[in-house]
């Protein structure tokens, strides 16, 4: 099982995403933004960071990269694609996901251990969760406020395409507490929080049991591996 991680100029969490894929049991494949080649991977992760400095709009310049043409094609033909934070922003800029992400309502970057509720456990990336399950994974962003028109929001809610929702605190003013959404088919998922930072005991968020021991994020990666094994 090979999962590609695309590095754009300014990507930051690409190595972390690769580590998470490895810990989940698949082979991470490093992909370069400037190529038109997905190297035959089975799934894709667009990692977090500040591609092109997040100038213009977050993810906007990266969404024009050569590899994005391939990503869009693969996503439309059903390949599982996960966009994390900056990756989520790219997916909205590429119109693979609806809505947009804007400056946090409080105006500052925020890094915190974030409570989330998994609303849809049927997507390619959340199959290992139970619907309604509450998890904690790190969140870190300056422009994570999810916005969409009223009709788009209604459609996303009605079609069960809100994948995860913030619980406890809404850290950035996202409408309907939305932390992540999917496309209609459920293969493309965008998340503001960072599951790849909650995959290894000792380096994740604090839990009631022990500091930095949270590993709730690994399930996003094991989910997609399982889904691909089933469909293989």
């Amino acid at each position, binding site marked *: 099982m090979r999962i590609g991680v695309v590095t754009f100029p300014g990507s930051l969490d690409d190595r972390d995403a690769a580590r998470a894929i490895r810990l989940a049991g698949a082979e991470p494949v490093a992909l370069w933004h400037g190529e038109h080649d997905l190297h035959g991977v089975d799934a894709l992760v667009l990692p977090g960071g500040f591609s092109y400095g997040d100038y213009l709009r977050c993810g906007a310049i990266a969404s024009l990269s050569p590899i994005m043409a391939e990503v869009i094609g693969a996503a439309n033909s059903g390949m599982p694609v996960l966009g994390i934070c900056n990756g989520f922003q790219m997916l909205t800029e590429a119109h693979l996901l609806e809505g947009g992400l804007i400056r946090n309502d409080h105006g500052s970057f925020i*890094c*915190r251990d974030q409570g989330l509720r998994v609303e849809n456990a049927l997507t390619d990336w959340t199959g290992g969760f139970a619907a309604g399950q509450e998890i904690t994974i790190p969140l870190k962003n300056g422009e994570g406020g999810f916005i969409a028109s009223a009709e788009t929001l209604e459609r996303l809610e009605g079609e069960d395409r809100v994948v995860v929702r913030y619980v406890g605190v809404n850290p950035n003013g996202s409408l309907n507490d939305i932390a992540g959404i999917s496309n209609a088919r459920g293969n493309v998922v965008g998340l503001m929080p960072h599951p790849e930072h909650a995959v290894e005991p*000792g380096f994740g968020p604090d839990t009631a049991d022990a500091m930095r021991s949270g590993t709730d994020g690994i399930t996003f990666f094991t989910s997609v591996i399982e889904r691909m094994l089933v469909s293989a």
Partner: protein
Amino acid sequence: MTAVTTTPSRGIADTVAHAISTPEKEQPFDALGLTPGEYAEIRQILGRRPTSGELAMYSVMWSEHCSYKSSKKYLRQFGEKVSPAMKKNLMVGMGENAGVLDVGEGWAVTFKIESHNHPSYIEPFQGAATGVGGIVRDIISMGARPVAVMDALRFGDIDDPDTARVVHGVVSGISFYGNCLGLPNIGGETWFDRVYQGNPLVNALSVGVLRHEDLHLANATGAGNQVVLFGARTGGDGIGGASILASDTFSEGGPTKRPAVQVGDPFAEKVLIECCLELYREKLVEGIQDLGAAGISCATSELASNGDGGMFIELDKVLLRDPTLTAEEILMSESQERMMAVVTPEKLAGFLAVTAKWDVETSVLGEVTDTGRLVIDWHGEEIVNVDPRTVAVDGPVYDRPVAYPAWQDALQADSASALPRPTDAATLREQFLALLGSPNLADPSWITDQYDRYVMGNTALSFPDDAGMIRIDEESGLGFVIATDANGRYCQLDPYRGAQLALAEAHRNVAVTGAVPVGISDCLNFGSPENPEVMWQFSQTVDGLADGCLALEIPVTGGNVSFYNQTGDQPIHPTPVVAVLGVIDDVARRVPSGWQDDGHNIYLLGV
């Protein structure tokens, strides 16, 4: 963007030949911060008057900031008060861009703390941001991958109307630059005190890791090797001094309004980091020097001084953001996110391929020579011809007057025992609440929540622990620990002991995590060295630190001196920020601060 490098209309350069033929020309050395004595010394070194370009270089390189002319005499102790044990793990000591320590298993760690105080008062956001950018470039120039940052901050009175501007600007600047570089922020300090009102302290620290074989020193050796400038284009940033030169020399154009502030571009720096690491990995460079204060003046003269020959540069090959810059301005510009490399001719094509891959603009400026001279041409005419060591190494050294402060005894005599000691519950309660509500004891998470502590996935300790810890090796769990501390009020009372207390606190904060302290870096923030009482505080501080390091047997690997921190003639408290670095065999065995489990016993250790 297309390169427009036309000859500036008012940039008719003052050539060496012209300098020889016009020995009596008056030069604005005082406006550039040089004393009459220093100017005379430059004339004597050169055997003629300096060209305006040479004057620009000497003035910035002989500034207190670059030359350490008031502190050099004292800092020598750090190299002298050493035991063999202190040298054991020291791969690179003071004097290089950053010190390097062997931490075992073939790994090395490099770290340094540096001030960006004055720029952060003028424009807090950009000042603090570029402070982070500058220290990170020092780390890259050693061949290391930067893996963490920290920030030690001092602000004025929290109730002063100007403090919010500075605090929020500085914190968001550090947050913006550090987060965008993808470096976890693993700790720091925040302190409010009126003495820092007109002069906040912004000390930024960065740590990098490297394999032993990847260690690089920035020096220009090997005649024929190419000198390459890469990264951002050169603009008119931070070159107030050069506009004085330009206006004095070429009155018809008038002085240009050049901003003193620099705008940082963390994205450009992130790309530069990855580009430099690929250049090192592919063995395409001999050495890389970062451009910080004094820009090209500093990089060329330092690279040449640290090498064994000379250097020839064609300054008009520098890619410009602003085509109206004069030669002097280009020499002094402090534009951020630039690096200078020395590359062998055979590897130049490979080098250029890597910078092209990362979309990093690059220009070959010249080459290493065997002349022993640093020669700089501007459109075919020689405008600089100096012995680089006279610019970068053998600058003036001062033995400034030192005086025991007139107020010191009275300050010490006025001890806490003179304060009233309330015993009634109501007053005690009131005082306790006042303490809890004081900004210096308050929860700093509103700051630390703006910093990414997760990126890279190796952060083993960070806020709220008293030290930050990073895993170096994913297999073995080898890691480093780092803490910074300083207490300006203790140092005001007794700078010798105050410095040792800062050292001891940082040392303890590292040791209690389970790590072994192995080295320190320091940032010495003081008032004006021309004030003998400040100079006394400084000398005591360095004595205290050097003696403390000898007692603890850990070396000083590098650091930074920041003088002239004062409002009017009121200096800040002496504030030596000490960073102690430790090593831990396996970060899984770390000991975090705070109660971990119910039922554990509590002990109080020490005296």
